[in-house]
């Protein structure tokens, strides 16, 4: 049990990092990584949504889809749950954390189409269909892995603006190449798997 938990945490956070190894959530990773502050905010919002989504989709899958033999509806049901959750988080933040709400702006509704969120729910029902705790843990730590990658990237990109990058490589291309170099670094973690 304890070893299983440590292994889930390590793989979700580092060895199978969602952005760097699994290529999930690339759009926000490249789109919202220009400033460290917004990157942290985005990471937190995604973590919140992914944790809630992991919990809700596990419950719906276990107690609705499996007993009624409706597994083929998984994709549709999960994306609706996620869209609903994002709407809920948006309303909640508007009331209780207006400063963070305005800082995230347009990116908040876009979490619905972040493939990391739908990806984690689909991976959970594949890998941990029987364990609520493992699903929730995987959701939370995969999201923290996303946050780690996007914050590191934002730190690099803030400095990149002042460097002499060739004109045609400014912006997106150099960001992709930077991400590639980061991915090489993340490959170094692959020995950690238990």
């Amino acid at each position, binding site marked *: 049990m304890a070893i299983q938990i440590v292994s889930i945490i390590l793989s979700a956070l580092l060895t199978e990092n969602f952005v*760097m*190894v*699994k*290529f*999930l*959530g*690339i*759009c926000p990773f*490249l789109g919202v990584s220009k400033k460290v502050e917004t990157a942290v905010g985005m990471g937190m919002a995604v973590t919140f949504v992914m944790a809630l989504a992991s919990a809700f989709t596990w419950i719906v899958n276990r107690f609705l889809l499996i007993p009624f033999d409706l597994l*083929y*509806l*998984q*994709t*549709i049901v999960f*994306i*609706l749950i996620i*869209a609903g959750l994002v709407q809920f988080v948006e309303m909640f933040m508007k009331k209780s954390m207006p400063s963070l709400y305005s800082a995230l702006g347009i990116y908040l509704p876009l979490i*619905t*189409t*972040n*493939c990391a969120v*739908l*990806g984690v729910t*689909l*991976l959970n029902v594949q890998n941990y269909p029987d364990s609520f705790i493992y699903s929730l843990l995987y959701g939370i730590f995969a999201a923290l892995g996303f946050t780690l990658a996007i914050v590191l990237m934002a730190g690099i990109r803030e400095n990149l603006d002042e460097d002499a990058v*060739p*004109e*045609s*490589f400014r912006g*997106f*291309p*150099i*960001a*992709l*190449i930077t*991400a*590639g*170099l980061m*991915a*090489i670094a*993340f*490959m170094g973690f692959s020995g950690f798997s238990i």
Partner: protein
Amino acid sequence: MPDEKKTVSSVFVNGLLKENPTFVQLLGMCPTLAVTTSLKNGLGMGLSATAVLICSNILISLLRKLIPDKVRIAAYIVIIAAFVTMIDMSLKAFLPDLASSLGLFIPLIVVNCIILARAEAFASKNSPVLSAADGLGMGLGFTGALCIISAIREFLGAGTVWGIALYGTHIAPATIVIMAPGGFIVLGLLIGTINFIAAKRKGDK
């Protein structure tokens, strides 16, 4: 092109080249990077996304006057998810090898930004015929881009194209190109090169 009259062919070419979803609009990056490890995967992913895009564009265009404005995004997502589920099931039934190598990324077509972006920007404002042309153009533009990237990565990273070995065992292929870092770097270099050529062309005119 707000003033030009939209014809089926202009809409099609627009999607295929001028506003290529991958190289110009930079949409749908996750599948672009994740499945382009071999030409077969790239083509399979591109064609699956194209099929979903055409179907969802036509249906959304037909329903554009019925869907209330406030819930339109949710409605679009449900329509797209329904088509993706159909594609997912047919791939599993008819092309099980492809389905298993694309894996998670088939259901993830639902959240491919290209499809939602075309629904919102084009299909919700235009006739079903034009929307179908737009879906076909954008879809093939996406497929073409995936094929280029995956051919380069397969050639450099595995020494093969479409599974056929091109250089013998004398030269070891650079495996890193088909691993995660290679995806980022190849795409970055490609977009940079395209920007460079585009800038050159503009300078010549």
